[in-house]
């Protein structure tokens, strides 16, 4: 067994920032990640990181834009907390080495992005996430924080009311081990791999949310799943940054004629408009040519490269087919502004958490800002908690229990069924019935479909009895997590009988501020998801 003050689960931007902050606050820290941190989903963020730099912008303007995108469900205190610290965090990243694009005075340049009312998105070409992640990982290494890479967390150890660590499987060693901690920070990312297609990496499967939920934490606003408006939808789906739209790209029909759509709407509305236009026509395309070849190659080099390698198209010449595709959730583990969950000693941050910042819709360019601003706050809060809390014992039988559970999974035969089939059916179901537009009937069908997939998943055994790099085993856990959360997403969507932000109910098309200016809260009661409401604080 290993022992630390703070264990961070997840090596993306939030997790790395939290680990750095906790270490600098004096805690002993370890980071566990199921893939190498530099392979995490943060690397796919492209367009920018928001901060109200410059004389024309202000924290107040920024807050107003966040609240508008959040469509009534943002927690004002949390929004204030972000806008006050965003500039400091972006400047810190700059000083630590992010090679932001510069304006003519050598200051950080900012570009228009999504529904930001000001040029606020600081960027490093169209690889902002990659650069931010790289620099965070560099600073993480600088502090010598132990990094357990390719360790898959299988359970949270909750002793009574408090979280006292995790158990994890080392993919390389094939061994299960216990990581005792005074505080655990979940930074495991989103869950939209439950949709097919989606914009996310293979591991974006909601592991942390599912573990927290099953251990008694509450999930918030899980029905709020953002669809990205401009995604090449074939194969695995390839996101084209909205920053391209703000830089002059056009949404056009097959003949290349521009379609009347307000490009600066919040993502939810833009996705809906694009989806409506696709349904009434022959499909829509993104035309990058108006940006100009030179600027495409200089400001969007990765887009150009990936459009070629993934879609087989030339972004300086061809029209790129697009449609809205599941992107990032706003919902997640309910936390306060310091990342504390309903379980003592358990914190959550970034895309796996819901602290009320994003409400019903996330402002474009805020994912990375949220990751670093709250990564720092939550890392510090967890370190302070670890310092003040009494040491609790890690339950001795926990590792043996997990061994038994893994053993049971890898014994027996599941005949014709497979994890891939269950996952594929889930993806289709979520996309069709719990997608951009939902209705009561479809959600009911989705719920019964998810239930039957859960039953099938329960019966599936892992055929590969090995332990070293047994991806069938980890996939079994991941599909299980997605099925747990899919039920919560569908239940929450069914409960919210209105349309707001990313949640569009065909059968309840209006926003109902009398009954629904509230978060949905889901907890596990007697083995099933139970939905409550929590009014927005302001």
């Amino acid at each position, binding site marked *: 067994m290993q022992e630390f003050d703070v264990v961070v689960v997840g090596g993306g931007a939030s997790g790395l920032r939290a680990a750095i902050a906790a270490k600098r606050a004096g805690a002993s820290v370890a980071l566990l990640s199921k*893939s*190498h941190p*530099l*392979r*995490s*989903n943060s*690397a*796919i963020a492209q367009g920018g990181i928001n901060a109200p730099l410059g004389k024309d912008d202000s924290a107040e303007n920024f807050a107003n834009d966040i609240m508008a995108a959040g469509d009534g469900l943002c927690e004002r205190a949390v929004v204030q907390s972000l806008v006050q610290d965003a*500039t*400091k965090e972006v400047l*810190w990243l*700059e*000083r*630590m*080495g992010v*090679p*932001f*694009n*510069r*304006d003519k*005075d*050598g*200051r*950080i*340049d900012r570009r228009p992005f999504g529904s930001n009312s000001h040029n606020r998105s600081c960027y*490093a*070409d169209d*690889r902002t996430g*990659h*650069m931010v992640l*790289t*620099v965070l990982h*560099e*600073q993480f*290494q600088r502090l010598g924080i132990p990094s357990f890479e390719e360790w898959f967390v299988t359970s949270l150890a909750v002793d009574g009311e408090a979280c006292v660590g995790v158990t994890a499987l080392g993919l390389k060693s*094939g061994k299960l081990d216990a990581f005792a901690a005074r505080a655990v920070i979940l930074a495991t990312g989103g869950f939209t791999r439950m949709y097919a297609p989606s914009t996310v*990496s*293979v591991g974006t499967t909601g592991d942390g949310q599912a573990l927290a939920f099953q251990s008694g934490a509450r999930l918030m606003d899980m029905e709020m799943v953002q669809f990205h408006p401009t995604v090449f939808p074939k*194969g*695995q*789906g*390839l996101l084209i940054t909205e920053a391209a739209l703000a830089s002059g790209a056009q949404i056009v029909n097959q003949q290349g004629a521009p379609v009347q759509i307000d490009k600066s709407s919040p993502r939810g509305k833009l996705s809906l408009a694009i989806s409506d236009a696709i349904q009434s026509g022959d499909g829509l395309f993104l035309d990058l040519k108006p940006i100009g070849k030179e600027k495409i190659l200089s400001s969007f*080099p*990765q887009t150009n*490269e*990936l459009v070629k*390698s*993934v879609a087989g198209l030339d972004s300086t010449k061809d029209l790129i087919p697009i449609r809205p595709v599941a992107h990032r959730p706003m919902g997640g583990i309910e936390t306060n502004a310091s990342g504390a969950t309903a379980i003592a000693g358990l914190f959550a941050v970034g895309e796996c958490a819901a602290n009320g910042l994003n409400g019903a819709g996330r402002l474009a360019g805020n994912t990375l800002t949220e990751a670093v601003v709250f990564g720092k706050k939550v890392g510090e809060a967890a370190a302070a908690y670890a310092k003040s809390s009494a040491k609790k014992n890690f339950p001795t039988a926990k590792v043996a229990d997990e061994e038994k559970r893994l053993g049971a999974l890898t014994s027996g035969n599941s005949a014709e069924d*497979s*994890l*891939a089939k269950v996952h594929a059916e889930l993806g289709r179901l979520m996309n069709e019935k719990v997608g951009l537009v939902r209705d009561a009937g479809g959600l009911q069908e989705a719920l019964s479909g998810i239930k039957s997939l859960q039953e099938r998943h329960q019966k599936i055994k892992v*055929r*590969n009895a*090995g*332990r*070293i*790099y*047994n*991806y*069938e085993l980890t996939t079994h856990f991941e599909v299980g997590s997605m099925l747990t959360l899919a039920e919560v997403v569908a239940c929450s969507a069914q409960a919210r009988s209105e349309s707001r932000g990313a949640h569009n109910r065909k059968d309840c098309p209006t926003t109902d501020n009398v009954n629904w200016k509230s978060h949905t809260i889901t907890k596990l009661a007697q083995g099933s998801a139970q939905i409550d409401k929590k009014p927005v604080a302001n």
Partner: protein
Amino acid sequence: MQVTFKVYRKDPEKDGKPGRSNYTVDVPDGVTVLESLFKIRDEMDSSLAFRCSCLRGHCGDCMVRVNGSSRLTCTAKVSAYTQKGPEISLDPLRNVPVIKDLVFDWDAFMWNKISTVKPWLEADDATANGESIAADAQMKDLRKVMSCYQCGMCDEGCTVLPVDFKFLGPAALTKAYRFIFDPRNQHAKEQLKTVEGPKGIWDCVHCYEADEHCPRGIEPTKRIVALRDEAYRVGISNEKVARHHKSFAASVKESGWVDEGRLAIESEGLTNVSGLMKLLPTAAKAMVRGKAPLPYMHAKRPGAEQIKKIIEKGEAENK
């Protein structure tokens, strides 16, 4: 389309011996190698191990050899590799310790080497005075280098690593460039010393394979050459290859042509007794064959003065 994938196999929990499994699968047009691997794992052999993460060319995790050439499986289309017949071989990268099947040891291959260069910026992190002011051209160069997604293709193509696995390799040296040429960095000199030491920049044979292999056009060889120039510029150049270069330039400057005897001695280092002893058999052979007549003289070439002027002009321009 029916395609047979001939996949390298190794199971550390069984006999640990390398082998190969053949899987014939029906795949649709436009399918990628990665999607085919998933199909094999899901439908035919759940024990098959391979890495992947982003699924669409962002992250570099899924690098393997497809028909002998290193490729990201997530962007490699099956149809591009079946033109000579419906067979595709899949292997781990060359010269890398393999753990299981296509999963190799990234730590030994690359991460540990990158760690050697202390891969971080040391800078003043006080943000009260705003950002550091920098020209975009300077940042643009860093953005190009930092677009590296650590796919390892440069190290895979390197012609030194198969001979000397301890060589830091183009990936780690390119990472070092990112720090050494960052104006915000305060420990660049220390990092330069590290890469200038044994197994660093002087061991590169500039075969340009790394540049040929890099899918992002980062040109690692060019970066290594820039690091060598920087080492000269700041006066850190104590390694054997650096001594070799210095001696070469000095003798050409003085006599118009290279003095091989002096080159050998100065390259080894005048205080390196054991190194100098090793030269003796070569010197003896050279004498026997009449290549170094005694007494050893290295005469100036006609036109040596003009050559000297050319070199001095170049030196003045560099300053």
